[in-house]
């Protein structure tokens, strides 16, 4: 049995949950959110949408299969969703100090330490989740026994998109169609899904004026935090909407496209973070299980006259996507690229590419 340092998760309502460290040891603060997925921790940890957040997994057994090698293919990570871990910290119940998998390179703990990310275990993550559900997402911090304290931070007050977006234009692939990808914190699997479909991807920073470029379609990526921070991106999208080129957005992309179309967004009490969110395509009997990771949502009632909801969440009725009534613009609040999560809606990439 490993000897581990004691560490506590402290919530801004005063709750103190004592646990033990298995990652890097430094005090951290962020927004505490929970995810109910049962697998896919390497993908989640590297998802830029988690920037600024302390991630709680409700599934108690974590670390079982270690983490894969760092390998690149076409300038993209092969097994991860970005170049680094984006969560501020990981909070779990039971850590597997030993792992087993043919594709594993090292343990989760070693990876966290390498990337200087905090991980604590032996937390009643179910009880913690219930509190987050009742109070809504909370600010939290992790401090170590005998270590320094740190102030609470509300990451939604900072521009997280600017923090995680690429800093310069990057081109991928050599497909017959050109898609500009606005990087608000894009997951690599989105780029992989596009490249698979004979597309050249031009990845641009979040505030880059892509209207100066030549392209066949516009893609707006996922990303962390509050969409209201991305006014400049919304302006660029509005500009693009003066033409008729197809636009597709995912997650933050759904929110920014909605805002460009005149709708408003709001913060959900505790967000959707899981692999099992059911959505229904509006006006049909078609239902899909989706992977989601968002804290903000589009207010259906504020959609402009030219717009309509495309998908609706079957659990709470929130917006899961929009489409333009006459133009080839649509978006999904969930993650059709999955990774991690179910792959049922990957066909949306086909629909987008077919429009080009």
């Amino acid at each position, binding site marked *: 049995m490993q000897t581990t340092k004691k560490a506590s998760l402290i919530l801004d309502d005063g709750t103190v949950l004592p646990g033990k460290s298995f990652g890097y040891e430094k005090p951290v603060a962020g927004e505490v959110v929970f995810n109910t997925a049962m697998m896919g921790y390497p993908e989640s940890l590297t998802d830029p949408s988690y920037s600024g957040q302390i991630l709680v997994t409700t599934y108690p057994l974590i670390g079982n299969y270690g983490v894969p090698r760092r390998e690149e293919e076409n300038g993209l990570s092969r097994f991860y969703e970005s170049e680094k871990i984006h969560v501020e910290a990981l909070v779990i119940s039971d850590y597997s100090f030993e792992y087993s998998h043919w594709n594993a390179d090292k343990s989760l703990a070693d990876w966290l330490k390498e990337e200087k990310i905090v991980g604590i275990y032996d937390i009643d993550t179910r009880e913690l989740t219930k509190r987050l559900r009742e109070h809504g997402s909370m600010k939290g911090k992790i401090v170590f026994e005998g270590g320094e304290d740190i102030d609470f931070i509300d990451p939604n007050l900072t521009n997280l998109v600017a923090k995680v977006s690429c800093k310069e234009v990057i081109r991928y692939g050599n497909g017959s169609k050109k898609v500009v990808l606005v990087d608000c914190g894009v997951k690599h699997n989105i780029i992989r899904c596009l490249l698979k479909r004979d597309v050249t991807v031009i990845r641009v920073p979040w505030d880059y004026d892509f209207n100066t470029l030549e392209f066949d379609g516009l893609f707006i990526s996922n990303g962390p935090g509050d969409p209201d921070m991305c006014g400049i991106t919304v302006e660029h999208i509005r500009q693009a909407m003066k033409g008729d080129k197809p636009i597709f957005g995912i997650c933050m992309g759904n929110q920014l496209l909605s805002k460009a179309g005149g709708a408003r967004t709001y913060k959900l009490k505790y967000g959707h973070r899981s692999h099992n969110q059911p959505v229904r395509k509006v006006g049909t009997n078609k239902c899909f299980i989706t992977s989601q990771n968002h804290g903000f949502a589009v207010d259906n009632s504020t959609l402009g006259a030219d717009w309509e909801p495309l998908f609706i969440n079957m659990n709470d009725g929130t917006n899961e996507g929009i489409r333009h009534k006459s133009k080839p613009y649509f978006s999904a609040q969930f993650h059709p690229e999955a990774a991690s999560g179910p*792959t049922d809606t990957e066909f949306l990439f086909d629909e987008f590419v077919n429009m080009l």
Partner: protein
Amino acid sequence: MNQAEIKKIKKVLLLGSGALKIGEAGEFDYSGSQALKALKEEGIETILINPNIATVQTSEGVADKIYFLPVTPYFVERVIQKENPDGILLAFGGQTALNCGVQLYQAGTLEKYNVQVLGTPVQAIMDTEDRELFVKKLDEIDVKTIKSEAVNSIEDAAKAAAELGYPVIIRAAYALGGLGSGFCDNEEELRIKAEKALSFSPQILVEKSLKGWKEIEYEVVRDRYDNCITVCNMENFDPLGIHTGESIVVAPSQTLTNSEYHKLRELAIRIIRHIGIVGECNVQYAFDPKSEDYRVIEVNARLSRSSALASKATGYPLAFVAAKLGLGYGLFDLKNSVTKETSAFFEPALDYIVCKIPRWDLGKFQGVDRELGSSMKSVGEVMAIGRTFEEAIQKGLRMIGQGMHGFVENKDLVIPDIDKALHEPTDKRIFVISKAMRAGYTVDQIHELTKIDCWFLQKLMNIVRTAQELEKTDLAQLEADKEAGRELMRRAKVQGFSDFQIARALWKEEMEDCHMHWVRRYRKSLGIVPVVKQIDTLAAEYPAQTNYLYLTYSGIANDVKYLGDKKSIVVLGSGAYRIGSSVEFDWCGVQALNTIRKEGYRSVMINYNPETVSTDYDMCDRLYFDELTFERVMDIIELENPHGVILSTGGQIPNNLATRLDEQHVNILGTTASSIDNAEDRHKFSSMLDSLGIDQPRWRELTSLADIYDFVKEVGYPVLVRPSYVLSGAAMNVCSNNTELEQFLQLAANVSKKHPVVVSEFIQHAKEIEMDAVARNGEILIYAISEHIEFAGVHSGDATIQFPPQKLYVETMRRIKKVAGQIAQALNISGPFNIQFLAKNNDIKVIECNLRASRSFPFVSKVLKINFIELATKVMMGLPVEKPGKNEFDLDYVGIKASQFSFSRLQKADPVLGVDMASTGEVGCIGLDTSEAILKAMLSVGYQIPQKNILLSTGSAKQKADMLEAAQLLYEKGYSLFATGGTHQFLTDNGIPAVKVYWPSESEHEPQALEMLHNKQIDLVVNIPKNLTQKELDNGYKIRRAAIDFNIPLITNARLASAFIQAFCSLNIDNIQIKSWDEYK
């Protein structure tokens, strides 16, 4: 189908699965009950055919009409003729119902009577059942299957195997639970197994073996709008090569990455869409442990054991939803039945791990092959829930109830060759791993030998490390350094250690019960107590009002609030199904829960068997899916603080807790713990009978062979010998002479001062009689006396039982009633009880008395139409009850309870009945007379009316004489009789023509009995063992085993054989009346 079409279905027939057997057990009572509930909610009239009278689904009010008839095309057609249903459900009664449905469809019966198959179309079922069609179907969508060839002869099988390359696996098509399948390393093995498999099915499959690959399952649901979900995935702890029913299984999968999980999930959905399932199916994969390569093993287009497990593991009611989808609903029309707000179209997120462990009873069988392989031998299973793997598996190992306390701190297992035992798995495999770890084997070494994924082994190693740490711990230090003590205790508890295990690790051989109590006090003083968590399908994402609970040490807070109003009553369940305790106790438990609710109390169930209805969270106000150990029951009682606890409806497991719960001042409802002890303790009970002047077979507890001989001199042979410590084989035996006695005691038992042996006089040719009754304050309120068809010597759980008795003297009945009355008074019984008697002439002797419900309670309750458990529960709750004004003398019909045996799955076991129970299930059928009832019952447990040839070897002179009348009848009916030497002589002497056949030991002569069996020239075998001499046993064994292996009906008891022969000779099958339960008045 739209809503209007759904409305058009007014009457639906559901096929049950019949008697519990290996591979098809209580899970189908659960799925059938759920389906009936779903139909009822729609206002649809329901008809159920299921001869299994002990099930919950065949209880009053579950279906509108219940037929206790065989689930065979013949009887189902006759019920369809009579009832004229609009629709039929085939997916809820296991392979039995599915096969029957396919036959009805192929014969055009369903079309003829215009009965619509609801849910998955029959063509889709056939596409999954016929291997060739199946492979073709999956090839169409580029899904990989195991390379396999369907062949119809042994020669073709050998050719196919040579092409594929050994090792190969052989399977019989259309067979339940992998019946007739096995691995072959060479051609010799292949020929043996192919022949056997061909006897079960005209088609067999030869496949390349993928031994060592991971085995993963997905439960998939699809509605008619093509919406699909996977409700749960499961990973086998044991790699491919061991039948999934024989494997330890965890849910969700633990060693799959996101990409692997979703690759298989996506395939499962592609498959279910292409096959066209409407409802639920299960997809099994073999998965390469070193890449993402996979093969689909099979698809079950019906509810299965795995789907029952998945339902309990996730809280998602698969059978209920499947039934609704069969009616035409979309998943989006239905609600999540746990949250009641969110949609049923979702995939459960678990925040715990479940671990299923099979329960074997191989020790009950003589000669059985203990090695695990591709065919199923386990008789039941348990499901344990925890928040660490260590916690779940240790809980589970206690739940299987074979004297184990978890993964460690068990009595030492003697394993001569650990390497071999790891490499060739038996029912003891998990404990061999424990032993190997203690012997210094590394995880990698064990992985090499077992191919079990290292992750599981690493976790098991954690348990061993903690055990070793506890063993090194100084008690004084625990008291002194509370902080270190807390750390260690908490870790042990989080890893699922019981107080008992901790105490044993601390005190080792010196450990006593009081040390366990010390551990409990010590850890409680440090605040180490379990917390109660809900199973809510969404990992706490949405609020849920669910009452589905488990306990864990990985947590700081309870999910539920305790009112402490003393308005709840806890019912203890019956645990894993096993030989001797099965669905009948589930029925009892459910009846108790229903009564408690009806009377305005909150009902609380503790049970851990995923194959039951009592663990359906709809059935009670709170369900603790957890252990029935003293420790856990006390944990729950301390939290729940109930009005009282009912022990007497769950069989022997709860009964055994009586004294210890009483010591803790738990309010045991009904008969007191001291009375229970007075009945259970052989000495106390015996002296009570003596003081009441009630006769019993003479017995003595002895500690030396010399003493045993002295006793035998007094009572004479044969004697029944019951050792208190069993080395191997059966726990008790009848011995007829000194040689047998010595042999048994040397081989099977250890006689010493520490391990005494109970020897009783064995009365031959005596009738065995049961009394099931309910008493209040010592006064009998209701009773049912039933008689065994077989003479005493066949275990009461294996015997064929007739109620009301048709051949008992009135005088005998009167005496039994009187004696039972005296016992009830002496023990001041309040609640259910059962007494077994021997009767010879008019003398009666008491064999045993159980102060709890017995196996036959549902049978007598349903035949008499008085719910004994409802009455007993009211008595135990102290409510006023009227003495029912009806008794068994008022009945104009007869009930027969017949036993189901699963010998075909227990390779090499001798299919002979004895004093130890061997049956895995039972049916109960009602008829106008004994013959009609017995014929229905025997056909229900798989016997067929023979066509032409019958092989007789009828045992001793007395037994031969007993069978004479039956043989005469057979001859008159035009049957051709074949008989071995002695029997042939006897028949000839009595003027009954028969063809003489030869025993295997007379190999130089023709015709050979064995050969005739091989050639399928015999339709029924009556083989009655004469005595226990080696030659007799060997000859008879070969015949009996061949009958089983070639799927030829076999009877080994003269009285049962006579009764069956009498029945089918006197009654034509077409004259059997098709009457529903309610029509017997």
